[in-house]
C-alpha cells in the first residue's frame, strides 16, 4: 500500500501511531513491509490457504462475534442435503460438469430452495461474466429459510464452514504458503483480538488480488473472516479494495465493460433475455426480497435516458435496440479474435495493452491484424507504435511494409484540461474544475465521442435501415461551449443523475425512479449527485470545518452513504454495539434511524419489524436484516449461488505452479476460463511432466514512481529519473544458484516470451520452504516498454492467458519461468529460444492441460 497508494497509507500510519498493529503479507519486502510491525513473506497464489487458516482459527477457538454472526449472517441457515464439499470430493463440490468445466448449482442451495438457482447451470454465466450480477443483485431466495439458531445442525452453514476449513491448520498454512506457524498464529491472534463490540479490523487489498485464477474467491475468504468477526458495516471495518486508476470505480459503475449497463444492470443475453420483461425479471427476481425489487424502474429510466421520446411503455422503452451477448466478448477473447482477423476496428482510450495486458505478444499481433486502430492518449504509446518499434518487428513477426493496420493517433486532453468527475476507490465522486485549454489538437473524450456521434448521425440521417434507428433516436443534444464546441460535462452529469421527463427537474435520488417512462436516469446508483440542480460532487467543504465522516466533501454513491450496510453498526435492537463504535442507530423517540452517516436502511423501519408472510422487495427485509441488497438480508458466509467456482473458497494452486496441491487431488481451479489458441500456452505444473523446465515463480507489481503501463510516468522526467530501468529482484540464494551478478543482466523465459532485466540481488526476496523444498520467487515491475524516456522489456509478455471464471480477469500475479544469466538473444534467435523451451516442456501451442487433474496425465496434453 505504501508503494502503490502512498497517500492512502498515511491513514495506516495514523492508526499505527494510535496502537494498531500492521501486518504486511507479500511475496516481496516493500516500502510497506519496512514500516509494518510484521512482514510475512508468502508464496504467490496461496492466499486462500492463509486466510482459510484464519477462518479455521476463528471457528476452532469460537472467536467469532456470535451475536453478529447469528443475527446478520447466514451461519444458521441449513443447506440442502444434496450438497457435498471439496473435502469429500478431493477438490470438487457437488454438481461439477466435466463436459463444460462448470458447476450446476442446484445442490448448493439452501434446504428447500434447490430449484431456485436460476438455470442452475453456470457455463453461460461464466462466458458472460454474469455470476457476480447475481451476487450484486442478491441471488433469488424466495420465501423463508430453515435455520438452526444453536448452530449445531450438521448442515447449517456454520458447521459446513467448520468442516470445509478443518484441514487449514497452522501446519498446513506453513506447508502451502511458506509462512511459519509462529508468524501465522501472531497474525490470527491480532486480527481476532482487534474485532468485536469495541474494536473493528479492516482488511485492505490491492487489486492484484483480482489477478488470479481464483481471484474472486480470495476476496470471498476475506469477506468470510470479516463477517465472522463482525467487521462489516461498521466504522474502521470492511473489506477495502484499493483500486489502481483514478476512475476505475467510475468506469465499473458507468461501465465501459461488455457485460454491463450503467448501475450494474446486465447487458441482455440473446437467449436469456429475449424481452424487456424477461430481462427485468432476471434482475429483480419476482417475489424476491431486497432492494433490487425496484429494478424495473431503474431499467426503464435508463432506456428513457438513452432513447428519450422514442422510448415508450408501448415499445418497451426501445429495449429492442440493445445489442445482445451470445457468450464471452471480453478483452482477451477480442484479442484472439483480432489475431484471427475477425475484428475490423479497435479504439484505445487512455489504455496501453501492448504493455499493460497479459501476453503482450498476443496483444501486439492482434493489433497488427486490424483494418484500423484509433489510439487516444497523451503520449505516443507502445500500442500506437507496435508496427514500427515493437519487439515483433525485431523478430521479424511484424514487418511494417506488410502490416495492414491503419493507425489514427488522436491526442487527448489531460485531467486539468477538462472538467468532470472521477469516482475514487471508496465510491466517492469528486468534480474537477478545468484549469486550462488543451494544447493543439488535444481534446477530451467527451468532445471526441460527442462529435463522433454527431457525425455518425449526420451520415445516417437518410437511412431507413432498422439497425440505424438506435443511433438516430438516441438523445444526443448536449449543449456545447468554447472555441472547440466542448460538450457540457454538467449536462451529462445531470442526465446520469436523472430528471423528471415532464418538467426536467433533476431527481433527488433513485427512490424517485418510475417504471412508466416519467423519469430518465443515466445511472441509477448515481442518482442524487445532481439533487436540487446542484453539482454535489463539486462540494469542497474543508475537512477542518466538518466532522470525521466529511459528508460534505464530494458525493458518494449511493445516496451519499460513506459506509455500506451500516445498519450492521447497530445491534439487532438498533443500539450501537458500543459507545466507541457508535455510527448509525435507531432513535426510538423520533422513530427513525439516525447517526453520523446516511443510514443504509429504510429510515422509519423499526428494528422490531417482521415482514408479513409472502412479502417481497424492500418490504420483505426484516428490521434486523442489514444486508438489504441480498435476497435473505444476510451477509453470506456461504454463497449458494453467484460465485461460479464454489459456495466456499478452496485452495487451488495457480495455473502455473512448481508445487503439487498439498490439499486436494485437483491441482488448479477446475472452472477457470482457458483459451486453446495457437498463440496461447500454459507452462506445465505437477502432476504434469516437465514442470521443472520452469522451476521459478515470478510475480509482478508496481513501483511508487511509475504508473501501470508507464504512459503517464516513463514520459515524465522526474519519475523516469527515479526509476530509470527494468530490473528483476532475486534473492542472494537464487543468484548463487543461477549465477547472477548484482547489477548484471538476466533473462527470464516462459512458454510465451523471453525478456531481459538488470539484476538486483536483495534480501527483499525470501526463499520459502514449501512442502519440504525450497521455492524461489523473483519479482518484476510491470511498467516498462519500448517507448518513453526510459525503456525496457515488458514483464506482462511472460504471462499466458488463463482467467478467473467469475469475472474473466487474467491470472497475472503469478506464473512460472526459468531465470538465466546474461542478456536475451535478439532477432529470430529469440523465437528459437522460446521454441526450445516449449519443446523441452512438452508445450504444444493451442493445447492446454485438461481442467480436471488426473494423476496419469502428463504423457500428452489434452486439447480443449
Amino acid at each position, binding site marked *: 500500500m505504501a508503494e502503490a497508494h502512498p497517500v492512502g497509507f498515511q491513514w495506516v500510519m495514523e492508526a499505527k501511531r494510535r496502537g494498531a498493529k500492521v501486518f504486511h503479507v507479500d511475496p516481496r519486502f516493500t516500502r510497506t513491509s519496512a514500516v509494518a510491525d510484521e512482514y510475512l513473506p508468502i508464496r504467490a497464489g496461496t492466499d486462500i490457504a492463509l486466510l482459510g487458516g484464519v477462518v479455521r482459527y476463528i471457528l476452532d477457538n469460537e472467536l467469532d462475534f456470535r451475536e453478529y454472526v447469528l443475527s446478520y449472517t447466514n451461519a444458521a441457515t441449513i443447506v440442502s442435503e444434496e450438497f457435498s464439499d471439496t473435502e469429500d470430493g478431493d477438490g470438487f463440490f457437488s454438481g461439477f460438469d466435466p463436459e463444460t468445466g462448470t458447476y450446476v448449482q442446484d445442490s448448493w442451495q439452501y434446504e428447500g430452495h434447490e430449484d431456485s438457482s436460476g438455470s442452475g447451470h453456470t457455463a453461460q454465466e461464466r462466458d458472460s461474466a454474469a455470476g457476480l450480477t447475481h451476487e450484486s443483485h442478491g441471488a433469488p431466495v424466495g420465501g423463508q429459510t430453515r435455520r438452526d439458531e444453536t448452530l449445531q445442525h450438521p448442515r447449517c452453514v456454520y458447521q459446513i464452514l467448520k468442516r470445509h476449513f478443518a484441514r487449514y491448520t497452522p501446519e498446513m498454512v506453513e506447508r502451502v504458503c511458506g509462512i511459519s506457524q509462529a508468524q501465522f498464529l501472531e497474525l490470527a491472534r491480532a486480527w481476532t483480538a482487534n474485532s468485536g463490540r469495541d474494536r473493528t479490523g479492516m482488511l485492505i487489498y490491492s487489486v492484484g488480488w483480482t489477478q488470479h485464477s481464483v481471484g474472486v474467491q480470495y476476496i470471498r475468504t476475506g469477506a468470510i473472516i470479516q463477517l465472522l468477526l463482525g467487521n462489516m458495516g461498521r466504522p474502521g471495518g470492511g473489506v477495502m479494495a484499493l483500486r489502481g486508476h483514478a476512475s476505475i470505480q467510475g468506469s465499473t459503475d458507468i461501465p465501459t465493460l461488455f457485460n454491463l449497463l450503467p448501475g450494474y444492470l446486465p447487458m441482455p443475453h440473446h437467449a436469456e433475455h429475449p424481452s424487456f420483461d424477461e430481462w427485468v425479471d432476471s434482475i429483480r427476481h419476482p417475489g424476491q426480497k431486497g432492494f433490487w425489487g425496484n429494478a424495473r424502474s431503474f431499467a426503464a429510466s435508463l432506456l428513457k435516458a438513452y432513447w428519450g421520446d422514442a422510448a415508450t411503455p408501448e415499445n418497451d422503452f426501445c429495449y429492442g435496440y440493445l445489442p445482445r451477448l451470445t457468450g464471452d466478448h471480453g478483452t482477451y477473447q477480442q484479442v484472439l479474435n483480432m489475431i484471427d482477423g475477425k475484428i475490423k476496428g479497435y479504439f484505445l482510450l487512455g489504455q496501453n495493452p501492448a504493455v499493460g495486458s497479459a501476453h503482450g505478444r498476443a496483444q501486439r499481433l492482434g493489433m497488427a491484424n486490424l483494418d484500423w486502430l484509433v489510439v487516444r492518449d497523451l503520449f505516443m504509446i507502445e500500442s500506437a507504435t507496435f508496427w514500427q518499434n515493437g519487439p515483433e518487428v525485431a523478430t521479424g513477426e511484424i514487418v511494417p511494409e506488410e502490416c495492414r*493496420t491503419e493507425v489514427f493517433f488522436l491526442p487527448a486532453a489531460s485531467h486539468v484540461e477538462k472538467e468532470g468527475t472521477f469516482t475514487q476507490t471508496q465510491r466517492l465522486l469528486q468534480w474537477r474544475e478545468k484549469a486550462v485549454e488543451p494544447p493543439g489538437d488535444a481534446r477530451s473524450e467527451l468532445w471526441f465521442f460527442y462529435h463522433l456521434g454527431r457525425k455518425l448521425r449526420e451520415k445516417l440521417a437518410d437511412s431507413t435501415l432498422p439497425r440505424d434507428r438506435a443511433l438516430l433516436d438516441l438523445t444526443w443534444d448536449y449543449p456545447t461551449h468554447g472555441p472547440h464546441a466542448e460538450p457540457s460535462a454538467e449536462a451529462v452529469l445531470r442526465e446520469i443523475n436523472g430528471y423528471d421527463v415532464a418538467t426536467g427537474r433533476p431527481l433527488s435520488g433513485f427512490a424517485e425512479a418510475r417504471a412508466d417512462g416519467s423519469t430518465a436516469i443515466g445511472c441509477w446508483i448515481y442518482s442524487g449527485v445532481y439533487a436540487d440542480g446542484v453539482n454535489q460532487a463539486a462540494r469542497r467543504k474543508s475537512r477542518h470545518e466538518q466532522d470525521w465522516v466529511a459528508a460534505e466533501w464530494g458525493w458518494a454513491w449511493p445516496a451519499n452513504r460513506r459506509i455500506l450496510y451500516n445498519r450492521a453498526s447497530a445491534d439487532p435492537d438498533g443500539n450501537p454495539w458500543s459507545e466507541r463504535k457508535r455510527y448509525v442507530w435507531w432513535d426510538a423517540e423520533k422513530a427513525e434511524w439516525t447517526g453520523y452517516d446516511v443510514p443504509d436502511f429504510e429510515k422509519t423501519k423499526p428494528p422490531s419489524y417482521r415482514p408479513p408472510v409472502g412479502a417481497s422487495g424492500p418490504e420483505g427485509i426484516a428490521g434486523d436484516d442489514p444486508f438489504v441488497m441480498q435476497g435473505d438480508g444476510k451477509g453470506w458466509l456461504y454463497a449458494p449461488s453467484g460465485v461460479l467456482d464454489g459456495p466456499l473458497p478452496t485452495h487451488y494452486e495457480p495455473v502455473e505452479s512448481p508445487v503439487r496441491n498439498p490439499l486436494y487431488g485437483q491441482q488448479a481451479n477446475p472452472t477457470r476460463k482457458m483459451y486453446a489458441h495457437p498463440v496461447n500456452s500454459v507452462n506445465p505444473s505437477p502432476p504434469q511432466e516437465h514442470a521443472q523446465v520452469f522451476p521459478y515463480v515470478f510475480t509482478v507489481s508496481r513501483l511508487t514512481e511509475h504508473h501501470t503501463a508507464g504512459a503517464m510516468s516513463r514520459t515524465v522526467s522526474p519519475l523516469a529519473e527515479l526509476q530509470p530501468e527494468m530490473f528483476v529482484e532475486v534473492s542472494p540464494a537464487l543468484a548463487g544458484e543461477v549465477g547472477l551478478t548484482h547489477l548484471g543482466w538476466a533473462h527470464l523465459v516462459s512458454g510465451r516470451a523471453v525478456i531481459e532485466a538488470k539484476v538486483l540481488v536483495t534480501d527483499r526476496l525470501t526463499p520459502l520452504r514449501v512442502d519440504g523444498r525450497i521455492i524461489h520467487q523473483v519479482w518484476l515491475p510491470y511498467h516498462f516498454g519500448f517507448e518513453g524516456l526510459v525503456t525496457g522489456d515488458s514483464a506482462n509478455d511472460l504471462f499466458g492467458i488463463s482467467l478467473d471464471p467469475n469475472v474473466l480477469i487474467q491470472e497475472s500475479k503469478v506464473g512460472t519461468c526459468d531465470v538465466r544469466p546474461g542478456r536475451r538473444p535478439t532477432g529470430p534467435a529469440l523465437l528459437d529460444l522460446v521454441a526450445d523451451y516449449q519443446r523441452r516442456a512438452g508445450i504444444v501451442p493451442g493445447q492446454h492441460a485438461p481442467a480436471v487433474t488426473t494423476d496419469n496425465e502428463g504423457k500428452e496434453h489434452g486439447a480443449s
Partner: protein
Amino acid sequence: MFRGSLAWEGVSGLGLRTFIEGWPVYRQLTGTDPLGRGAAAKSDGSRALTARTEDADSVARSVCPYCAVGCGQRVFVKDGQVSQIEGDPDSPISRGRLCPKGSASKSLVTSPLRQTTVRYRRPYSTQWEDLELDTALDMIADRILAAREQTWEDVDTQGRPLNRTLGISSLGGATLDNEENYLIKKLFTAMGALQIENQARI
C-alpha cells in the same frame, strides 16, 4: 550561503555594523533563528522571492489523475499555462499530501513529449503523416459505418434479435471521467458495438 566575504574590500565604506549584519552567522547568533534554517539564512535575493502559487491568475480544484485514492489537487494557472500543482490541504482524503507521481503532475501535463497533433499511419506505411483533426474524425466515422455494414448481425440462428456488430472493439475508461464513460457506453451501445472493455477487466 556566506555573503560576508564578498564585502571585505568595502568594509570601511559600508560601516562595520552593516558589514557584520551581513553575516548570516551574526543573525543566527542574535536573532530568532539559532539553527540558521529560516530568517537568518535569507539574502536580499531570497527575501524578494515569492511562491509561484502567490501570483497565479486562477486556481482550479482538481483531483490527482494517477491511482484511485483521489487526492485533492490545486492547479495554479498563470498566463494560460499551468504554473504549479499542489496537494489540497482541505481534502479529508489526502490532507494536502501528494505522492511522487501526484507531485509530478505538473511535469505530466506540461511534458514536452506530449503529442499535440493528430498522427496518421497508412496501411503498409513505414512512417507517420499529419492529418487534420476534422478529417480524422470523418474518416473514423466512415470506418465505423463500414465495419457495421460488413459485420452486422440482426438475429441469431433461431431468429432471436442480436442487433450488434462484433467487428468493433474498444479498451479504456479507467483513466477517464464518469461523464466520458457515460457517453462512450451510450454511443457504442447505440451503434451495436458490444466489445467495450476497460482496465477493470484486467
